[in-house]
């Protein structure tokens, strides 16, 4: 399961992810992290059955945690199934089925957004 963890520096600079791993013993996979001067956001992958535990632990440590249900969004009314996105995605989210229709493996998506400017038809967008 993928969780989006937001942390604000106002609440201190504690190593929240490391602390959560230490406290729970759950192995967290950090898929993507953006950290700037005042806040940070990390996309982490945790085993489904330990999601609740990680969520409550991180919340207690001062982070805002939200479950990520959706990957990149594809507007099928704009998509023409060209495949421009396929080779640009670092996670191989996009592929063709036997009929050359675009297939999106949403669960693999880490919302990096690299595919968005690669789409000639503006069919791709990050979920809000």
């Amino acid at each position, binding site marked *: 399961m993928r969780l989006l963890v937001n942390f604000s520096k106002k609440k201190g600079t504690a190593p929240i992810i490391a602390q959560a791993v230490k406290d729970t013993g759950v192995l967290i996979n950090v898929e993507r992290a953006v950290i700037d001067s005042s806040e940070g956001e990390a996309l982490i992958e945790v085993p489904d059955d330990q999601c609740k535990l990680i969520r409550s632990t991180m919340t207690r440590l001062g982070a805002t945690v939200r479950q990520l249900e959706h990957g990149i969004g594809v507007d099928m009314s704009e998509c023409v199934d060209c495949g421009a996105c*396929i080779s640009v995605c670092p996670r191989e989210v996009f592929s063709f089925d036997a009929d050359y229709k675009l297939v999106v493996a949403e669960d693999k998506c880490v919302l990096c957004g690299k595919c968005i400017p690669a789409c*000639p038809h503006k069919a791709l967008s990050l979920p809000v």
Partner: protein
Amino acid sequence: MHKSIETINERIRDGSARVVTAEEMPAIVSELGEEGALKEVDVVTTGTFGAMCSSGAFLNFGHSEPPIRMERIWLNDVEAYGGLAAVDTYIGATQQSDTLEDQYGGAHVLEDLVSGKSVELRATSRGTDCYPRRTITTELLLEDLNQAIMCNPRNAYQRYNAAINTTDRLLHTYMGTLLPDSGNVTYSGAGLLNPITNDPHLRFIGSGVPIFLCGAEGMVVGEGTQHSPGGGFATLMVKGNLKEMTPDYLRAATMTGYGVTMYVGLGVPLPVVDLDVVRATAVRDEDISVDLVDYGVPSRSRPVIRSVNYAELRSGAVEINGEQVRTSSLSSFRKARQVAAELKGWIEKGTLQLALPTRPIDTTKTVHPMHEKKKGPRVLDIMDRQFVSIGESEEIRAAAQKLLKGETNHLPVIADNGKLAGIVTTFDISKAVANPGKACTVKDIMKKKVVTTTTEEAVDIAVRKLEQNNISALPVVDKDRHVIGMLTAINLGKLFGGRWLK
């Protein structure tokens, strides 16, 4: 055996014609043999759906009261050509909006019209005795226009080179997003479904031949611009009635960093009259090769990495130096199939009959590059031949003195062997002075990764290097990496008022 086009049209009329797509043909030929396929199949339909920048439409608005002779014309803020007398215009697909830039363009205007949306027409004129009106602003639907004739100067490329990028920088090109360090390959074209690939000698594709164009029945006007059949890159000029088209097969698009373009669906039906047609339409993806070209080199003649065929490109990855590099198509094979299938349906229903070209298209010519009488400025023309440099083992203090004395901000650093080793700027020296540490020689503080130029490089290319790297000077080096000059932002000033802008 030979089948006449009259026989084929008779069969189309009575509903007995056997029509297949170019994708189905190879299997039919291998099953029935060439003679058997000739007997069995009457028409092969082709199709392609991809970015075709050289597209647009002639529009006639009708006369206003009082009448205007439009001189400058905008449709939804996209400028259209105003040199066609009173109320005619040509709107080109790649023209960009004055306000929305690459987010909206001529292609979007055409897609909006075809989708039934209203479009704002704005025009100005100087006013004449016969056309007194000076300005007009109104909303128009496609149905309000007298004529809306799509006329595309260059469509249906026979094939198109695939693209790769060997530089360390992400490139945005008309061939899509090219990842650095040969990170991906992009290509375009329908391969075995491509119209001209199925009739490479253009026996049945020529003026007057009916085609599928963006969902409407259109026709071939003749050879397209940049038509280069001698090199395997034939093109077509085509036309069709915009009013009969559908947004399913006409889509505006934006190639990031390049601009607006239009995806066009185009298919040509080919009559199976003899064995030569059977052989040509049995073409498979693996039979069609294109060059894989390095778009990292910003030149007309880009280096070719290797030859690739459409079967490899469509497989999802091609091998380059022992590594599998993933591919992306920019055109839609699924849509190309739909074009060929719709065209097949039209012929099966008897709504479209075939016609032979009224004029043949040249099958031998090759395109030549622009005839440039005046060469654009090269680095040689504006670089500083007088410049100050420094050795890599000299002290930082010496560098500071040289910068002051030379009244420059950049010092190329020369290694003991006389070659360029790095560059130091006033910024590097200020930093070294502000944070005194172990650094004491130029070598310790110089930037070792230097972006350079050469004497023969076009100034426009050098300017892009400055912009992309956010720097203001380039050492000019010879082939042995000896510094022979400097090109700085100040030199670029020589371009203005100089002979190059005349």
